[in-house]
């Protein structure tokens, strides 16, 4: 099956599954790009500030394009989709909304770089698996977008893999904190890899491969990296705080939304 444009969507079931998938893809990239942007000026060195902000800009660009596809399907304009939806309508994984660490970016930020590296690296690997699968999605506008996103994702993966290996191998405090961060990320990573309640329909409609395949591929992509640093494989993943694909979220997301939409909400009708 191949669906070339919104008007060609065959039935409501297809549309429902497509909308669910697009909201997950958009909301994941959106909230993680936001959390990344909070690091601006706080990264370990100035070169990292340049690199990380560039990655966040790319990732926010990807979110904007997914929101554009939703707009094309009649879900409202992309700015309001990004800014005006309450937390219970968001479909991002809980791991991606969590704060960078104690404190606030304006006052006493005590952000955890180990958590940032592990979260962004493992997420980038998962995103690569999804995007590779989306290249053959039955919804052509999404397949075309995936080809484009993949060209940029290449650089993100290179970047986070370098940090990950260097810090895991560094010994001392770095290695200890990386292991702690891995445990923490793994406790919620199931929430990133799941396609939520309509995952089966997405696979049946040919929108993306089934969840089990995607998880297998994610493990296979991490296997050589794990083995090179002698970590137990495969990592045990769970979803302790709940399923963001079901609209379950933490207070961290509410905090993020109130900050990031402050300007938008001051005048929702403004043209930017």
């Amino acid at each position, binding site marked *: 099956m191949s669906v070339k444009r919104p008007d060609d969507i065959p039935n409501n079931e297809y549309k429902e599954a497509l909308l669910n998938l697009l909201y997950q893809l958009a909301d994941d990239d959106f909230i993680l790009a936001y959390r990344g942007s909070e690091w601006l000026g706080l990264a370990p060195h100035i070169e990292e500030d340049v690199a990380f902000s560039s990655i966040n800009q790319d990732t926010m660009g990807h979110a904007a394009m997914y929101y554009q596809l939703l707009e094309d399907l009649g879900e409202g304009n992309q700015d309001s989709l990004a800014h005006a939806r309450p937390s219970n309508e968001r479909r991002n994984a809980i791991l991606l909304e969590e704060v960078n660490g104690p404190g606030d970016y304006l006052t006493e930020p005590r952000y955890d770089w180990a958590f940032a590296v592990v979260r962004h690296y493992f997420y980038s690997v998962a995103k690569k698996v999804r995007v590779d699968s989306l290249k053959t999605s039955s919804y052509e506008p999404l397949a075309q977008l995936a080809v484009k996103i*993949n060209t940029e994702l290449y650089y993100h993966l290179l970047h986070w893999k370098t940090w990950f290996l260097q810090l895991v191998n560094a010994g001392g405090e770095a290695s200890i904190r990386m292991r702690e961060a891995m445990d923490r990320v793994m406790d919620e990573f199931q929430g990133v890899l799941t396609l939520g309640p309509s995952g089966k329909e997405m696979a049946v409609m040919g929108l993306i491969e089934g969840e089990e395949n995607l998880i297998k591929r994610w493990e296979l992509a991490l296997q050589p990296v794990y083995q090179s640093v002698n970590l137990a494989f495969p990592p045990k993943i769970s979803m302790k705080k709940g399923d963001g694909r079901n609209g379950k979220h933490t207070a961290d997301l509410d905090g993020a939304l109130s900050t990031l939409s402050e300007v938008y909400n001051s005048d929702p009708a403004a043209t930017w």
Partner: protein
Amino acid sequence: MTEMIWNVLQTVKDPEIDSISIVDLGMVNMVSTEGGTISIELLPTFMGCPALDIIKANVLKACKEQLGIEDVNVAFVYDPPWTSSRLTEDGRASLKEFGIAPPPKHFTGEEDWQIHCPYCDSPYTSMENLFGPTACRSILYCKQCKNPFEAMKPISTMV
């Protein structure tokens, strides 16, 4: 008529690298006319690029000023995807003129690419940061003429 439009598009420069036109960047996919309406398809380079809206506005402005036509549709499309191999030879020369090393012509993601200094053409350069001041550029240093410089990132669908 379409040739005239391509000539107009040659005058629209990248807002962040003003020596290169959007035609030489390989951003123009298609130009067509129907009745009095011009349709132009552009390929975004990087998706988070904040220059896209400015480029669109500049295309509309150029068509109005140089052709007197206001009925212009500018659409960004993703098929085919923009890749750095779409740069023209003139485009590569313009980048160099601006102090930006052009990307390798063919890039598969497997190989290390050699980047020559845009000032002295030495291959004796080092990558300081894969990421640079804009989404499409990296930061390098020339060990020969001791100048820092930038290079356009190779973008390929082979990766």
